[in-house]
Every structure is written in structure tokens, then in C-alpha cells.
């Protein structure tokens, strides 16, 4: 696990470890699970279909997981997307997806680093 890379990609690694009672092994495992969970792909697919409900569902799942893993940048973006979807501003929410994709890709690279 490359802590510096994760921090650079917008993750509060110490915060995440505190939530895991200090277990680096568990954090490694959860990062692996995160890389495989497909919520970002679901969000993009929903955008392609113009399906706001499915998009909210994926954004909400992403928000929950990022929150618990202290992926601050991605958490903030997905929170904003959720709020926009809920307030009916679908276009505004979809407009955040490219930024989310970048943050997500940065995180994936950091996890693999």
C-alpha cells in the first residue's frame, strides 16, 4: 500500500485507518474490494442511458463507500451529485461525472501503485 500516492489521490489514509481500528491489512483488502465494486462504471452507464434513478443509486453507493474509506475528494463529489439528483437537477448532477471519473481513475492508480 502506497500511502503517499493514496493521500495525493485525495484520501485521508489516517482517517480511514482510524475507522478500521488501525488495521492496514483490512484497509488493503477494502481497497481491493473498492477497485472491483463497479459503482463508478454503473454511474457512467446510467448517464449513458439517461437513467437518473440508477445514477442516483450508483452515486449514493459510491458516496457511502468513499465516506467510510475517507476518500475525501471522491466523497465530496459524490455527495454533491446525490444532492443534485435529489433536488431534481439531473443535468447538474451528470455534469459532475467527468470530475468524478478523473478522481476515481486517480484513486485506482494510487491503489495499484
Amino acid at each position, binding site marked *: 500500500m502506497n500511502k503517499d500516492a493514496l493521500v495525493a489521490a485525495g484520501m485521508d489514509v489516517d482517517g480511514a485507518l482510524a*475507522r478500521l481500528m488501525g*488495521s492496514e491489512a483490512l484497509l488493503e483488502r477494502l481497497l481491493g474490494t473498492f477497485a472491483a465494486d463497479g459503482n463508478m462504471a454503473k454511474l457512467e452507464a446510467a448517464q449513458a442511458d439517461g437513467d437518473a434513478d440508477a445514477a442516483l443509486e450508483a452515486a449514493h453507493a459510491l458516496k457511502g463507500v468513499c465516506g467510510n474509506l475517507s476518500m475525501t475528494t471522491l466523497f465530496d463529489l459524490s455527495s454533491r451529485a446525490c444532492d443534485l439528483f435529489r433536488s431534481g437537477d439531473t443535468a447538474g448532477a451528470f455534469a459532475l461525472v467527468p470530475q468524478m471519473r478523473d478522481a476515481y481513475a486517480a484513486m485506482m492508480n494510487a491503489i495499484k501503485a
Partner: protein
Amino acid sequence: MDAGAHSQGRVLIVDDEQINRLILENLFVGIYDVDEAVDGQEALDKITAEPEGYVAVLLDVVMPRLDGIEVLRRLAPTGYLQRVPVFLITAERGDAVMEEAYRLGVMDFIGKPIVPYAVIRRVQSVVELFEARKRLSMTVEDQRLQLLERAARIIELNRGMIESLSAAIEFRDGESGDHVRRIHDITKMVLECTRLGDGLTAEDIDDIALASIMHDVGKIAIPDAILCKPGRLTAEEFEVMKSHTVRGAELLERIPQMRSMGAYRYAIDIARHHHERWDGRGYPDGLVGDQISIWAQVVSLADVYDALMSKRVYKDAFPREEALAMIRDGACGVFNPELLDCFFAVEPRINELHDRSVATR
């Protein structure tokens, strides 16, 4: 997750995201065993399969198939939310979801992203509270049953002592203790099985039957020479013999502990008036008709019937038909016609009781 040696029970974690489940699960290592459900439906299935299986449930709100609120809606009518603390995991606070969840009986909310020590502390406190409450109500129930059992034993002991004392008095004139037991049974049966008992509760009848056992306690004051005399009593001797009614009532009145018993007033009345007769020719007070309480009337007839059917120092037992004819014809004094009707209606069953007690003597 391993069943920890010091595990304080099992917690059900319901969340569709594996990462969230694993984080929560990790918090409870060494405190609780953990079971998981990936959505509301699986959670309901697990709870239904094992209603006593969990000490707490942690429930995510947004899930596929069945969401957290729907789980609460289905659990609420079963009373589960009163027995087991259910926590809702949510990032959204203060919205309509929260209001409905509280109304349905959710224990509390756990905010997302979770704060480890707050979650552990909150869940543990509430689980301990619920367990303590459960233990307390079990202890109270235990104590209630113990008290009931003790009360039943005291009542039984009372009855036993009253029976023994009354039987001891009967022994003096050569009776076994069976006479008082038969009077008890006859009195109880006549009141339970005929209209004579109308208006009396089961408890009243038990009290009267218990009181009937003491009808002859006054005999303790009668000298042996009179009580055990095989031949006819002289007029003077008979007057002394008759005094057992008044002496019995006086004796019972002097036992202060008797006053709190339901049988008390019946016992005094029966002891004094079980030789009164319907036509006013009985003793000691010469009461007429309804002046004699129904319980004293029933016991007088039971006493006469049992005396006729039994062997006494001064006589043999009469055959049943003859005994019944004597009662009907007023050979032992006049009885209330309605009492006679009711008595003859249940006499065959009384006779069976009598036969049995002779057979086992």
C-alpha cells in the same frame, strides 16, 4: 467471523456494500459475533428464522430489493423493535425517513461515514440496557412465581393444620379423620353442583368447605364421660353435649389469626348453627327457616347423612336406603325442602365418594 470466547451475543449487519459491512464487522471483533445480510429481504429472512438470534441489528437505509425503512415497517407490527434494538445507518439526518423510522420504533441512528468508537459505545450501551431489562423482567417474573408458590404452600399448610386439629378432636369419640374430610367433600359438592351454590364464587365455596371441617371443634370442651358414652345420654348430659356448638364458635372467635381468613365468618356460623333445624326445633338458638345460613344448613345435612352412614360408638351404620328415608322423613330433624331436593340430586355421587373413602380406610 469467529465466535469470540467473550462474545456478548450476535449482531446482524445489513448493508448492500461489502466494504461497509466489513468495516462494521471489524469494529465488533472480540465484542460480538457478527452475521451479515446484503439487503432488507435477507435481513427479514434471517430475523424470522431466528427471532432470538440477535442482540442488535444495524440496518442500512438505501438497499436494493427491500430498503431499511421497509424492513422497519414489516418488523414494527411483530413487536421485534421493542425486544431487539435496531439501528439505522444513514448519512441523511433530520429528514422524513428519520421521522418515520423513530415512529416505527427504531432505536437510534448511526451516521455515515461511521465514527468507530461512537458506534461501538452506542451499540454496546443499548444492548446492555436491553439485556439488563430482559434479566430484570425475568427476575421479577421468577419472584412473582415464587411468591405464588409460597402462598399456595401456606394455604395448603393452613388447611392441613385445620384438618389435623379437627381430626384430633374427632379421635376422642372414636372417629377417624375421615368424617371431617367427608363433610368437606359433601359440602363442596352440594354447593358446586346444585343451585344452592348460586351467588357463591369458587373461592367462597372453598372457604365454606374449609370452614365445615371445623364444625365440631367445640367437642374439645365436652368431657370424655359424655362424649364417649356408648349408651343414651341423660337430659343433663345432652345439654352439655349440645353446648359444643356455642363452645366451638367461642373457641374460633378467640383465634385472632383466623380473622384474616376467608373461612373465618363461615367457620363461626357453621360451628354455632350446624344443629339448627328448618322448623326451629334445633339448637342452640332455635333459628327458623332462612334465619339459618345456607352453608350452616348444608353442613347440618352433610353431618347427619355422614353420621347415619357411619358406625358410631352408640350405633351401627344404617343401610343407605334406610338412611335416606330417615332424612326424608325428618327422623333427624326437619330440613329445608329445597336443600333436600338438591341433596338427593347429588347424593349418588356423594355415595361414591363415601364408598371410596370406606374402601381406602
